[in-house]
């Protein structure tokens, strides 16, 4: 592509505004769809692993140390390195890249789920157990809804990282928004390289916004109203009535 200037920003703007880049199977919309497809697949796998594990550890308190150290180790792994390692060890294609992304998503999701369960007021859990809720009912009806805010925070952080990092798929297969980065570097097309980066950032912001909305609507209004209402009119009225009935003053 020919640019009218050697300025990086001008090139980026021209690449982004070229209608040709917005159509066809190699255009931006198609790449976004592919990208989000990989993000979705990665998150499904990560949730399938991290949610049961996080709930179990959070609820029982067993294996807490294992989780904390495991999460630490996973966080230290370089995702791109894992893509190549998995490709060497197992197979070609996109699966090594997806599994490398799963390793990236699991730590925030796992610690979010675990922290969510732990954040639930122990008194409430104790009361629920005393009333005769089974452990499963405590988990699903008390810990899950009350820890949801924190849990979704972890999921949101995981999604955000995966959206930004799913570009690694492009190293295995010409798919997703990473393609613009790989091509841009290979053919020395800075407009494409930085334009692609801007698109990734925009997608990340949009996805995060959707997650924020989801978080908002999934939370019970009871957990949002922390305002401790002063004793209501009705109750103080009753108190006076009772105080006078119980031997107030003549």
């Amino acid at each position, binding site marked *: 592509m020919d640019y009218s200037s050697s300025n990086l920003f001008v090139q980026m703007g021209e690449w982004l505004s070229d209608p040709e880049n917005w159509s066809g199977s190699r255009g931006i919309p198609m790449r976004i769809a592919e990208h989000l497809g990989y993000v979705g697949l990665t998150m499904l796998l990560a949730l399938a692993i991290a949610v049961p594990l996080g709930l179990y550890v959070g609820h029982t308190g067993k294996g807490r140390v294992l989780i904390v150290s495991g999460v630490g180790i996973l966080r230290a792994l370089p995702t791109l390195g894992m893509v190549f390692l998995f490709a060497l060890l197992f197979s070609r294609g996109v699966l090594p890249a997806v599994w490398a992304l799963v390793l990236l998503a699991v730590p925030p999701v796992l610690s979010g789920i675990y922290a969510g369960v732990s954040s639930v*007021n122990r*008194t*409430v859990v*104790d*009361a*629920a*157990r*005393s*009333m*005769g*809720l*089974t452990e499963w*009912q405590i988990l699903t009806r*008390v810990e899950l*809804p*009350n820890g949801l805010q924190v849990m979704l925070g972890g999921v949101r952080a995981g999604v955000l990282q995966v959206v930004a990092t799913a570009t690694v798929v492009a190293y295995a297969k010409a798919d997703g928004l990473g393609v613009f980065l790989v091509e841009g570097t290979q053919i020395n097309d800075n407009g494409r390289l930085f334009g692609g980066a801007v698109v990734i950032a925009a997608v990340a912001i949009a996805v995060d916004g959707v997650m924020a909305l989801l978080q908002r609507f999934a939370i*019970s*209004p*009871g*957990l949002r*109203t*922390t*305002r*401790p*209402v*002063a*004793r*209501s009119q*009705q*109750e103080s009225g*009753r*108190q006076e009535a*009772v*105080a006078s*009935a*119980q*031997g*107030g*003053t*003549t």
Partner: protein
Amino acid sequence: MTSTEQASTTRPMIEFRDVTKTYDGGQPAVDSLTMDIERGKITVFVGPSGCGKTTSLRMINRMVEPTSGRILLDGQDVAEQKAAELRRSMGYVMQSSGLMPHRTVLDNIATVPRLNGVARSTARARAKELLDVVGLAPELGRRYPGQLSGGQQQRVGVARALAADPPVLLMDEPFSAVDPVVRAELQSELIRLQRDLAKTIVFVTHDIDEATILGDRVAVFAVGGRLAQFADPEEILRAPVDDFVAGFVGRDRGFRHLSFQEGEDVTIHPIETIETGRLADPSVTVNSPWTLLVDAEGRPHGWVPEATRESVTSQADAVPGGSLYTRGDSLRRALDASLSSPSGLGVTVDDDGRVVGVVRAAEVFELIEAGRLDRGRANYNTAV
């Protein structure tokens, strides 16, 4: 069949049989506890902090497992019952309401019926009734626990415990965290509720006053999880078994004990009254040193001293009175009414709050003395 039915109506609701609980490696929190908890009565566990009251209570619904010994509920060893089912057969109220913050008040109350498979609409309808039973306005049902005051939350906690109509209620310091006015109110409402419901209630408190007000039977626990005395509240106050109980019951026990002496026999004297509406008219005079101010319904509103009659032209100018004595109430109330009154005359009212006369402290004392003589004679007779 009939024989077991008979057995189950006469035997205690809950039986502790040599129950000991030792938490990891420590001293026993509860030490060889054996006691019977009567059906349909309020049994209070009272004692200083850390003496094993909560542990004892929580062993009943298996929230804590005993180290040794057995607990029978209606003759059945609780250890042989499924924990969750056992717990659903008992209401549980704790100090902090423990309401689920993500559910509305109605849904909180409906929790156990819902677990038992009652349809949502039925459970909610029942929850609405219970709001009324515990003295809360229906519109509070739609609120979330975070929007209620502490006292309201405790009421919801009681409603929730009652929702499945369990025969047993376990209450662990349910009124300790609310202010004294609300506490007194909650206490008298529990007594009122219990009159209709006749549940077997096990009530934990560290407050001896609360214990003697609420308890049909009071168990005083001593440090180390030892049951020091288990008796009627009246007996605990009158005849503590040892120095520990005497010390715990405290200095005011003599005065508290008056709560158990009925004031039926106390003489009620007539008292001159003046109606509030006639105060402003200076031609209406008073003829005794202290004249009682009453409204049109005959309810008391303070005193008018003869010496300063001219300056009292409205209710606001009257000398505020002391506590009221409702006819037939305990001697403690009678004594308090007379001692707290500026005239030394305890204003006595009927159940509707209308003045019926006054009582005198000196005469209340005479009755106390007479009661002491009677008891002395009774003790002498049983001793012989």
